[in-house]
């Protein structure tokens, strides 16, 4: 008997026809893998759910600002001095709201002019207001209130509005002072009043406002002797030594997150007592006012930009933060791919499809086919997300989306996109190989879960450190992480907007590429032997043997 070759020389040379064959088979496997993934409900759920959640949050947050219910509070002013200050605070808070809405209205309905800034008007007061609004809200609000509020602003803005602009709708007040409920003895001591009001604060009883029963948001209780608690620089000592008894104005509420009312009242009360203070010290209040409104502008400039264009715009700030979004995108997409890499490989293993496959294709073809097919699935998801983003912008246009359009411009025009594409692919190649090898060793997803745990922990690191890296993109931590291949795609993407040193870009890329080749080679070896294994996943020692064993099962 004559044999052409022996076993040591197997899989003879790669002729070009063999290469074409390999490629054909790899593509066939990739194609099946892709179609099977894309056909599942889970895939479309992922594709649709992420934009839905994103836009849902976006929509809700822009709606919720105006959708907070009207809050009712009760004021018990036993000192009979500060009712007007509280009232002023409420007024001011409302006017601030009106002003914000008006500015948004103005931006939305101004006559179309080039650029995204507000139109230059010939009216200096309106200009001043717009300028203040952009830089110093407190001064803007002062100007707004002193100038006559909404009526004045509407009148001034009218010539600059589009002809078809809808009338401005004044927002409803967010805080309304309700009557003290009948049956509350306001002549009692503060402690007793609070005791009486407790059922209302706990929402066990409700207030009656114009026949409607509404919950009590806050109780503002000003004791008779409140002025004794005023803190002055020389009275700090007593503040330090005092016990925990409530001091000054008491603000009772069960809602600790909405601090607008308490902030407004605090500001307003301070304003009131300072005025008293100025008066008692004989200082001219008008002069103080005008001094307080004096300010020095601070312009943010970026040394990396062309001369004359150094001013930092919103888009520039965003560009600094955009890489974080890309890091997230890489992470989420990778997580999705991991799912497919593991479950598809394990399906083939546990259903014993693998053996028929291996009679028709080589393990390397199978692995490459899977990598490509699942990679294409991931890319499809990302493209679908981006497409839905565009569709959303087309359908839903408003002031808020004007910002999104800016964001999109930044993303598409910047140098970040090539970085993203490159690091996305590298990240996928690096991790997909590892996960595929793990999948090939396991018979059930449960087994795989325990094996991928350490890798998952590693993957969380770049996401956790993402904001630190963004704040100090060329700092020591960022640089060290960049040189660890498992983190390189994430961290370098994170740093992409901060012009990292050339040595970092080129060096880490070389290390990363070498690492990818090594990982794919090792994964291929493990995959080839793991895929036909039955029983428990191997221990580390066995794994090492699998890698080292040459041409043996």
């Amino acid at each position, binding site marked *: *008997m004559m*044999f*052409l*070759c*022996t*076993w040591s*020389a*197997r*899989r*003879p040379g790669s002729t070009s026809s063999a290469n074409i*064959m390999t490629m054909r*088979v790899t593509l*066939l*496997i990739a194609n*099946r893998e892709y179609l*099977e993934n894309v*056909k*599942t409900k889970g895939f479309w759920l992922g594709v649709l759910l992420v934009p839905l959640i994103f836009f849902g949050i976006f929509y809700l947050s822009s709606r919720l600002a105006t959708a907070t219910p009207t809050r009712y509070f009760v004021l018990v002013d036993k000192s009979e001095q500060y009712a007007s200050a509280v009232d002023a605070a409420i007024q001011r808070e409302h006017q601030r709201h009106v002003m914000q809405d008006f500015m948004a209205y103005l931006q939305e309905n101004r006559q179309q002019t080039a650029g995204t800034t507000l139109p230059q008007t010939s009216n200096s007061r309106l200009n001043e207001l717009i300028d203040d609004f952009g830089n110093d809200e407190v001064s803007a609000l002062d100007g707004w209130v002193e100038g006559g509020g909404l009526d004045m602003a509407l009148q001034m803005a009218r010539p600059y509005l589009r002809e078809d602009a809808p009338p401005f709708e004044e927002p409803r007040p967010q805080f309304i002072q309700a009557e003290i409920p009948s049956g509350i003895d306001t002549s009692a001591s503060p402690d007793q009043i609070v005791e009486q009001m407790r059922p209302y604060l706990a929402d066990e009883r409700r207030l009656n406002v114009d026949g409607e029963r509404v919950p009590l948001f806050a109780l503002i209780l000003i004791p008779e002797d409140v002025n004794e608690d005023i803190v002055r620089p020389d009275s700090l000592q007593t503040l330090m030594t005092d016990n925990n008894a409530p001091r000054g104005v008491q603000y009772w509420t069960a809602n600790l997150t909405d601090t607008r009312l308490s902030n407004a009242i605090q500001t307003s009360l301070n304003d009131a007592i300072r005025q008293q203070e100025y008066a008692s010290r004989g200082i001219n209040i008008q002069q103080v006012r005008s001094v307080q409104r004096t300010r020095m502008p601070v312009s943010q400039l970026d040394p990396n930009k062309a001369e004359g264009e150094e001013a930092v715009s919103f888009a520039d700030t965003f560009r600094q933060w955009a890489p974080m979004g890309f890091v997230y995108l890489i992470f989420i997409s990778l997580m999705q791919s991991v799912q497919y890499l593991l479950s598809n490989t394990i*399906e*083939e293993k*546990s*259903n*014993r*499809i693998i*053996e*028929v*496959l*291996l*009679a*028709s*294709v*080589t393990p390397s073809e199978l692995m490459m086919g899977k990598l490509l097919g699942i990679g294409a699935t991931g890319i499809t998801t990302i493209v679908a997300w981006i497409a839905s983003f565009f569709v959303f912008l087309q359908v839903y246009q408003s002031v808020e989306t004007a910002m999104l359009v800016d964001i999109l411009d930044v993303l598409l025009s910047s140098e970040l996109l090539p970085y993203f594409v490159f690091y996305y692919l590298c990240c996928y190649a690096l991790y997909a190989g590892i996960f595929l090898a793990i999948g090939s060793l396991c018979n059930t997803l449960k087994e795989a879960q325990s094996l991928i745990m350490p890798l998952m922990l590693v993957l969380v690191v770049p996401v956790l450190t993402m904001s630190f890296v963004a704040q100090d993109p060329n700092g020591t931590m960022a640089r060290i992480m960049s040189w660890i291949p498992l983190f390189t795609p994430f961290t370098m993407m994170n740093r992409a907007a901060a012009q990292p040193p050339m040595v970092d870009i080129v060096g880490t890329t070389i290390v990363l590429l070498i690492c990818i080749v090594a990982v794919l080679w090792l994964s291929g070896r493990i995959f080839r032997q793991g895929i*036909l294994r039955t029983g428990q996943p191997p221990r580390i020692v066995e794994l090492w043997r699998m890698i080292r064993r040459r*041409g*043996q*099962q």
Partner: protein
Amino acid sequence: MSESVLKLHDVCKRYGDFTAVDNISLSIPKGSVYGFLGPNGAGKTTTIRMILDIIRPDTGQIEVLGSPSAMNVRHRIGYLPEEKGLYKKMKVWAIIAYFGTLQGLSRKQARSKAFELLERYGLSDFANSAIESLSKGMGQKVQVLASIVHEPELVILDEPFSGLDPVNQEVLEQLIRDLSDNGQTVIFSTHVMQHAERLCERLLLITKGRKVFDGTVADAHAIIPRRIVLETCESVDSLQGIDGVLSINRLPPDPTGRPAGSCQWELYVREQADPQEILQHCFSNGVTLSRFDFTQASLHDVFMHLVGTEAREHKFR
């Protein structure tokens, strides 16, 4: 012997201390139906996996369709593994066509071939069903079709009959005959002798990794001498002189009632011996027979004869 499609030469495979396949050599002629027989754990599947180059032997050489590795000629081989499984979500026709394309058919060819096979073997109603909706036996038939869709020269079926009902076993036997009529070589493994007896031209019998028989079905039958059971009251000594009679033994008395004085005798005769001649001899010598049983040893008997004790020991080990 005509051209060989498969040659094994001193092939060994060990897993640690356990020798799965021990020095097996064989040669399978083109166009034959070849049976791999042996008890569970004999090494049939390991041998088949080595033939397909899914695992590699520790020593020895294998030549498949003139190539040292089945991988190089994989499009000319069809394989049904012992453990059957298919993608659960795929449609029946699509999975047959998919394996066809992996084996080098064009999409169009693979599709039309898939429908043709489903039609021929009575599965056309299920062409558009998902695999997961089929019964196990049905899935197995689909997988057999998937392994032969590309009309391979060499078809290797590992335990193709296990899990099939008698009707489908019949269909599968017909399929194997069709392949053979078409000039394709079929190797299949089984531990059910009847299939081998009906289908195979040649057999390989292995146990504990060692080859115990390799040859035609007729050769196998010849291994066990034919057996004749006589019942008579007379002496049977005269039969000793007949050519072809190897031995005569008296069987132990049967406890159930039998005519007084009658005995049962067991005669072993050579393959070529003619039972008619023995019967004739009895008549002419006045040996009155109350029973004359002549049984052709079945493949099952051969199997039990060759591996029975070992297989039982193996089972209770």
